[in-house]
């Protein structure tokens, strides 16, 4: 029973801490650009403001436009239940949940693209088409890297992979999964719309992907989309942190142990975010036509990490 509460707590934590990570990324970028950056509650305040605002909705839109934010947010909340954070299990984890995870993200993306097309604006259509063409490459790569990790762990659930890796020596894990790590890192950039792929801070029509799809939204819907996006970001960071550095999980069941495990998790995530922020600050945005190259590299890396295990054996 106690572990159930831990799992529930980690689910809620991921959802609530998501805006904080967004703040942290902004802060890092600001630091690299010699700016002060926002205060820690800025992102929360923004969300709150959006929730209270009135919505302006195009008359030509159908029910899809209304449903999409809820579907997206719901899918992401569901996906969050599959991620172990401080315990070695997750709320709804089961064997093979990695595949479900990929398709939950896909479901959200599908509805988002439909909604973007629904209003009939040019930007929406453009964003949807870009998102779809990128995800057609990103999704197989994500799936393939999960397969690669699962092949090594003999288990295709996220929690199973993590608990298996936690048993092995860290160097061995890093050696065999480094390619998959590279692949997942690239996919993280794509899925969270970070700089070599997409720039969340701009509304420049030539480059934007995600922002173009959310352009017609306002008020509560926009808040849901933004929040969902932030949760997605923390999910990927948590995946990277816990899959490849599965240390400090499975705390002793007292308050002290849980707190320590939680702090260690936050440390890992903040450090990863620092790395990502550093990469973001030091690269230029790719031209849209070059992004498939990057994704192909992710795909090859994921394949290599699977093939490497076939060739080298265990």
């Amino acid at each position, binding site marked *: 029973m106690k572990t159930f509460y831990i799992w529930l707590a980690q689910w809620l934590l991921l959802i609530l801490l998501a805006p904080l990570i967004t703040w942290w990324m902004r802060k890092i970028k600001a630091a690299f650009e010699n700016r002060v950056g926002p205060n820690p509650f800025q992102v929360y305040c923004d969300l709150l403001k959006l929730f209270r605002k009135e919505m302006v909705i195009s008359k030509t839109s159908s029910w899809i436009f209304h449903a999409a934010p809820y579907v997206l947010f719901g899918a992401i909340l569901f996906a969050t239940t599959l991620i172990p954070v401080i315990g070695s299990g997750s709320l709804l984890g089961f064997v093979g949940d990695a595949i479900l995870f990929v398709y939950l993200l896909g479901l959200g993306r599908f509805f988002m693209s439909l909604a973007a097309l629904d209003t009939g604006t040019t930007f929406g259509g453009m964003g949807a088409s870009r998102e779809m063409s990128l995800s057609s490459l990103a999704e197989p790569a994500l799936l393939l890297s999960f397969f690669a990790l699962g092949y090594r762990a003999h288990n295709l659930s996220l929690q199973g992979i993590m608990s298996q890796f936690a048993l092995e020596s860290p160097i061995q894990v890093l050696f065999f999964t480094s390619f998959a790590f590279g692949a997942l890192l690239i996919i993280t950039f794509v899925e969270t719309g970070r700089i070599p792929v997409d720039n969340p801070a701009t509304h420049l029509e030539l480059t934007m992907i995600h922002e173009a799809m959310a352009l017609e939204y306002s008020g509560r819907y926009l808040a849901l989309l933004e929040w969902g996006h932030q949760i997605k970001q923390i999910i990927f960071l948590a995946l990277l942190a816990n899959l490849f550095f599965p240390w400090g999980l499975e705390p002793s069941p007292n308050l002290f142990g849980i707190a320590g495990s939680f702090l260690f998790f936050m440390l890992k995530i903040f450090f990863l975010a620092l790395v990502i922020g550093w990469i973001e600050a030091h690269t230029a945005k790719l031209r849209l036509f070059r992004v498939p190259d990057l994704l192909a590299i992710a795909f090859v890396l994921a394949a290599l990490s699977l093939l*490497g295990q076939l*060739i080298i054996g265990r």
Partner: protein
Amino acid sequence: MDAEFIFSLIHFLGLLLLIASFGIIASPQLAACIRFYAVHAFLLALITGLVGYLNHIPHLVALALLTLLLKTVVIPQVFFWIIRRLGIRKEVESYINIPFSLILAVLLVFLSFYVTEKMRLTSIASREFVPLAVATLLFGMLVMTSRKKALTQVLGLLLMENGLFLMAVTLTFGMPLLVELGIFFDVLVGAVIMGILVFKIRGAFEGIDVDQMTVLKG
């Protein structure tokens, strides 16, 4: 060095070999392609030498040295010389763009794993190398069919030959020395003759893109 260590080292080199093959497909510049080919041949020579050392087969070590000399030094240098003489600066042009050919390449590797599993070739040196060799062969074909420049076609051919060599080394500890030497001789002569023809193509077609070759039909 103990046998266990060498055995795992050979396998690790095999993985690097696969990465080098991917490099040939991924690199947008001809010069980079050739460097990757040299790396590929170098790894091939190392694998051959180690397999020979591990199993006490002296002629494999000799073949490794020959590979090292011929394929990592002579042939790449000939290629670079041709590039300099022809003044090729442009990128590798391809019928299929690079991301797609990479994905195709990944599929080819999986295909070769599947096919060799079906063939039940239980190799003597190591099972994992047979699909690797087949994959290299298929990569060579991919490069040959998808690239436009005459020179990259030759490169694809050489890559295919590397795959066959790897196949022979790991499946049967190399063909008889007489045969292997003959094959080496053929490869060298073939590369030289193709190089000369590339010069002639350049002279006649103003460029070495093979998609200009459409005179003969029917």
